[in-house]
Structures are given as C-alpha cells and as structure tokens.
C-alpha cells in the first residue's frame, strides 16, 4: 500500500486513543500515518496542544489531517478544533470516535480526499451504533410469522 496523504490523529481523554489505535490494528493491520494522543490526568490544554503539534509535525506540509476525538466538548475537541482553522494545513475534526469510524478512516484514505473521508468516517461511526437487541427481536418475529403461515 502506498503511503497515505492524510494523517489520522486520535485524540481522547486518558488512554482511550492509544487503546483504539492498538485495537483497530486487529481489524485492519498496523496503520501507517496514524497517531494516538491522550490527555492524561493533570494535563491541560497546552500539554495536549504540544503533543498534537508533535504528531502533526510528522506529516508532510501538504498532507491533510483527520482528527478523531472522543466527545464533542472537552479539551481534545477544543485543541483539534483550534487546528481546523489557521494552521495552513487542511484539518477536519470529528467527535464520537469508535472502532467502525476509525477503521473506515484508516481504510478509505486512498480513495477519498479529506472532506470526503470525514463524511465517510461520520457515516461509519453512526452506522456502528445499532440496537441489535431490537433488530434481533424483529427478526425473530418475522421468522415466527413466516412459520405460522406455512
């Protein structure tokens, strides 16, 4: 696989980002150009900004960056959001990162530009939230209706 032109930064409270990135490699293999950044207890905005800048510094100047953060409010979202404007680099930020979103973001970098990749990631993240219990009860009801007809 060629080197992707879009870097992926997972930015979360605590150890979540590192765990997500480590876990997603079980699904899609070890990802290139992807980094986990955590806001650890006792750290503030400046600490996280520094870590994010270090991660972004590993990208080529022309590379875009997709930031996946945990919750829409909070320091990770603020820091990533601040980068979305005014750094000269194309940056998109999405909150609510989950494994389907992260896997999609890592896998689709070759066939999408940054805004399209952000859309794909949002969709995969949303589609990963399913009330399986309700779906299975509906499936069971369909099966029961069919067997009572026959």
């Amino acid at each position: 696989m060629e080197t992707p032109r879009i870097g992926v930064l997972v930015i979360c409270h605590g150890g979540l980002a590192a765990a997500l990135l480590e876990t997603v490699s079980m699904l899609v293999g070890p990802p290139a150009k992807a980094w986990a950044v955590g806001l650890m207890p006792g750290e503030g905005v400046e600490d996280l900004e520094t870590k994010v800048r270090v991660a972004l510094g590993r990208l080529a100047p022309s590379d875009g960056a997709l930031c996946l953060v945990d919750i829409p409010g909070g320091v990770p979202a603020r820091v990533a959001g601040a980068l979305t404007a005014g750094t000269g680099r194309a940056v998109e930020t999405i909150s609510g990162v989950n494994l389907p979103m992260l896997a999609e973001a890592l896998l689709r970098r070759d066939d999408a530009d940054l805004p399209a990749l952000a859309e794909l990631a949002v969709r995969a993240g949303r589609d990963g939230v399913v009330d399986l219990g309700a779906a299975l009860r509906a499936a069971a009801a369909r099966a029961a209706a069919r067997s009572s007809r026959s």
Partner: protein
Amino acid sequence: MKIALVRVDDRLIHGQVVLGWVRMVGATRIVVADDDVAKDEMQKTLMRFAAPTGVETSIVSVEEAGAALAHDGFPDDTVMVLARGPRELARLMAAGVPVTKVNVGNVRAAPGRERLTKEVAADPDDLAAWQALDAAGVTLEAVWIPGGAVTDFNRVVRARVRT
C-alpha cells in the same frame, strides 16, 4: 458484475476480518453462499449489521448464490463472495461461478478435524475438496487480513496424502 474476491471463512460476514477485505477490493456487495444461514433470520440479521457501511449484502443458499453469480446476477456490483468451506466453494464452481483464486481464512477446528494450518482445519471430505480445487488449478492463498502474511495453501493441501 465483477467478482473481486472469493473468501472461505466459516464466520462468513465477520466484522474483524471482512472490513479490511471489502475496502481493499472495493466491494459494493457481499454475497454469502450458505444454506444454514440463509434459513436463519437471526444470523442473517446479525450478519447484515456486520457488513461495512454502504455495502449491500445477499445472504442466500449455495444454490441461489451459484445461479446469481454464474449469470451476472448483480450487474452493477463489485462482489466479494463468502463461503463456509471448500465444499460450498466446489458447489459454486459446479454451478458455473468462475473462481481462479481463493482467499482462505478461518475454517473450523473441531474434534475429528485435522489442522492444516493454524487457521484451517479439515475433515477427510474437506481435504478432498481442497485437493480437487488445487487440481482444478485454483490458486489458494491463506491470509488473515489484507497485507498480512500469505501462506501458499496449494502447497499445504498437496503435501497431504490424497484421501
């Protein structure tokens, strides 16, 4: 219709493994050829949700899958075909589905089934089916996730005594 990938994996649509392959080959539809699951509403429901975002699923019997795949049943799609084991695959080929290369994933380990590799076990019928596929010139590659290590599965089945 383009058949982009044929994979043997007894978990069929299974998030962990399917995700990478679907995106790698650009599949727009997953065709599961399996008699048991085609009859089971619950399993079908779970598998539909396991398919990656935006990818259609057809979960049908081996016979229905064979008929559709042999006669351009999904004209606009790039298809990934999933079957549980080599015998299902042989039935698809007998129905006229063109298969030249098979991606071999996980095939059930159980008592009475001999381990051929870490991920693939076979009973004598399965082994005979693998060997028939090998003899028919089908390339068999055992590989877990895209970019992972590839085992020449033709060699593995040839190394076994013919049953």
